[in-house]
């Protein structure tokens, strides 16, 4: 039954790799059913009408024309369907994704600071606390403006730019901000898009459920390098992720052990 209504194959959406993504696709597909229905219906009527009432076949027009209320019913129907999709899916789903965040303990939490033209991720490290970020202390040596003498920051992990790792099947919470202009963090395969706006720190969440290597796109014009502002997003098995994290912590050298 369901697969008949499933347009994914025809719409050619990118590979799906997150839990809530299913619902995004579902909404897209339902709306397209509405559109297709209206389109087919009207287009058939349309061609029939211009064929049937062409001048050569119908030399004398009818002053009154159609005496039907069908149109009213169609309009009401459209309104109803839109209402259903709105109340049934769009509103509650949005509420869920922006109001109901998983607790930080059950999830992988990271900060992403966008800048022209790259993505910088940062993990809280062993203490699960981020260092203080204050752009007033930004400098060429400290591009992300993390306050040097903040104990919480000592064990934070900073992978190379453009690189993000998360474990599979565990909620991810990303705090997004930007140094300079507005960027937009878009992960097609996760069905996630969120603007990174300077002066704001906006959280976004999703649960990757498919191991793989995906692409972050910048979805907001941000200057000459916009088209090249991609990022590598790795969804690892929990083992691989643990390994990766461990070596990152080690590579931090002493600073990680200072606070043991």
């Amino acid at each position, binding site marked *: 039954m369901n697969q008949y209504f499933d347009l994914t194959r025809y719409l050619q959406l990118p590979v799906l790799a997150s839990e809530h993504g299913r619902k995004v696709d579902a909404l897209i597909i339902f709306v397209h059913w509405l559109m297709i229905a209206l389109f087919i219906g009207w287009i058939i009527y349309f061609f029939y009408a211009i064929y049937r009432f062409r001048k050569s076949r119908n030399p004398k027009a009818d002053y009154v024309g159609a005496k039907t209320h069908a*149109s009213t019913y169609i309009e009401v129907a459209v309104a109803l369907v839109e209402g259903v999709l709105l109340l049934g899916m769009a509103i509650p789903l949005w509420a869920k994704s922006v109001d109901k965040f998983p607790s930080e303990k059950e999830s992988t939490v990271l900060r992403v600071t966008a800048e022209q033209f790259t993505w910088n991720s940062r993990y809280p490290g062993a203490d699960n606390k981020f260092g203080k970020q204050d752009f007033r202390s930004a400098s060429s040596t400290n591009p992300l403006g993390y306050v040097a003498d903040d104990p919480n920051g000592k064990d934070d992990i900073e992978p190379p730019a453009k690189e993000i790792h998360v474990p599979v099947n565990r909620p991810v919470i990303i705090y997004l901000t930007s140094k300079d202009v507005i960027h937009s963090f878009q992960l*097609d395969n996760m069905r996630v898009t969120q603007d990174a706006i300077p002066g704001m720190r906006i959280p976004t969440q999703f649960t990757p459920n498919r*191991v793989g290597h995906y692409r972050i796109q910048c979805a907001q014009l941000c200057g000459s390098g916009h088209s090249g502002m991609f990022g590598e997003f790795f969804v690892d098995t929990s083992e691989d992720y643990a390994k990766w994290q461990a070596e990152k912590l080690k590579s931090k050298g002493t600073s990680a052990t200072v606070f043991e």
Partner: protein
Amino acid sequence: MQHTHDDKHHAHAHDEHAHHELGFWAKYVFSTDHKVIGIQYAITALIFLFFGFSLMMLMRWQLAYPGQGIPFVGSLLHNLLGDAAPAKLNDAGQVVGYIMSADLYNAFGAMHGTIMVFLGIVPLAFAAFGNFVVPLQIGAPDMTFPRINMASYQCFVVGGVIMLVSFFIPGGAAAAGWTSYSPLATLGSSHGQTFWLIGMVFLITSSLLGAVNFIATIIQLRAPGMNWMRLPFFVWAQFVTAFLLLLAFPPLEAAAVMQLMDKVAHTSFFLPTGLVVSQQIANISGGGSPLLWQHLFWFLGHPEVYVLILPAMGIVCEVIANNTRKPIWGYKSLVYSTLAIGFLSFIVWAHHMYLTGMGTKISTFFQTTTMIISIPSVIILTCFFISLWGGSIRFNTPMLFCLSFLPMFGIGGLTGLPLGFNYSDLFLHDTYYVIAHFHYIVAPGTIFALFAGIYYWYPKATGRHMSEFWGKVHFWLSLLFMNLIFQPMFVQGMAGLNRRLYDGGATYAGVANPAGGVVVGVPQFFLDLNKMISHAAWALALAQIPFIINFFWSIKKGRKVDSDNPWQATTLEWQTPTPPPHGNFPVVPNVYRGPYEYSVPGHDTDFTPQNEPDRVAPKITQPLPK
């Protein structure tokens, strides 16, 4: 104005008078005659349309063949714009061509949007057709404020020139998208954005003057008996459009002033605290908000899109009624839907901002209003569709364009729905799906309606017809290529290809995924569509040649009209001499009936002009103006 009240006594001999006493300049350049101004607007806007299209054709080259030398005009661009179009060297180090830099691509993109919207469609659909047709259709001698009308055109030209000049200043034209989001728009060191803002202030002023004039004209100068429900739908569309411009543009003007302050007086209206420029905290007071700009921009932005479509719908309505030879079905619902659209369009704007971190309450509000506003559009289209039923349809060029408008707008409008739901916009936002959505509305939608308007009213303006044959060639080719251009963009968008990508998405070209063979990024197939689209776009340009030639050739050589009312239409503009003299109507017309009285049973012809006296004695609802 001079010759509008000084010579009330010999108003009769007026047009000769105009001929003899007005020199070329007074008659064609500094004219206060709404018809001349309308034509000035039309020509200027068409040229801008073509210019905006040309920018896009160059961009399409870059999208199809990223980083390859631009054919034909490459060196020209290099000479005009310098390093914005840098040389491409081969291994031997000699120049093999000139390519488009990322900055140039962004500048062209921003200016394509700006020019098409503010210098192309609005002046053509609203100012040109409005000026030429509205006073004629309501039986007025001219606009209420002829000199303000002229001033409005002049502001428009000044704004346009400023925009054009900005291409040639150091650093080039504005490159932050037609939406000019801060901080990007503000931080850029070049003056292109400053020019853009100043240009916009002029264009906005022009539109405001125009809007005041239109509304006042429609309220004050309706001929006796022309009460509201007897107005042709086109006039209604222009009326609502004028209100949209009047009330939605000023906030953008305010925003433009503030962004201008940010650029020249180094204020921080749209710049937050703690902005980092070249690894240093920016030397600004901070405390501003980037979102404020977006709100003010889209408060105009959304009404603006209805400014782009309503006049088109008006034209379509006129032409359909005329060529089905029957009244429009549901005239009243058309009018009320239009008013509803106008009203609602002020409270949906933030559907362009779903992903700026919007909480549940706000997005609920805005997506609800967005869905509500789609209903009146559905009603309008439905009325047009049903109007076909029972007609005696003539397939001349204007009608062909209008008929194809219906499904084209339909597609564009319907694809607005998945964007209107925030949860699906989550995926579709900023993809080519959005581009395809609105281009279906403005290009094969609005532009087709405007073509129809040109073919339809051309005889009234010049006294000659444009060639039907070449008109049909123009139509079929345009229809074909428009769809070849924009249909694939839906596909690309669904596949996750983003807009505003300088390299056409090459950066995201799909790669085999080490973990589990899944392809990440955009599969090559969807990138290859770019080539196809671009070729279609260039072909579309060729398809315009018959039109351009037809347009100019027919002025002198076109088939003469056999009467003042060649289409056998009912509305007042066809009840004047052709072309209408200065002052339009020899005697003030008197209106007895609704706009679309075609095929009235028992009437000897199949059309009954609005001003044809009833068999019964006419009852004049108003005294004639003195």
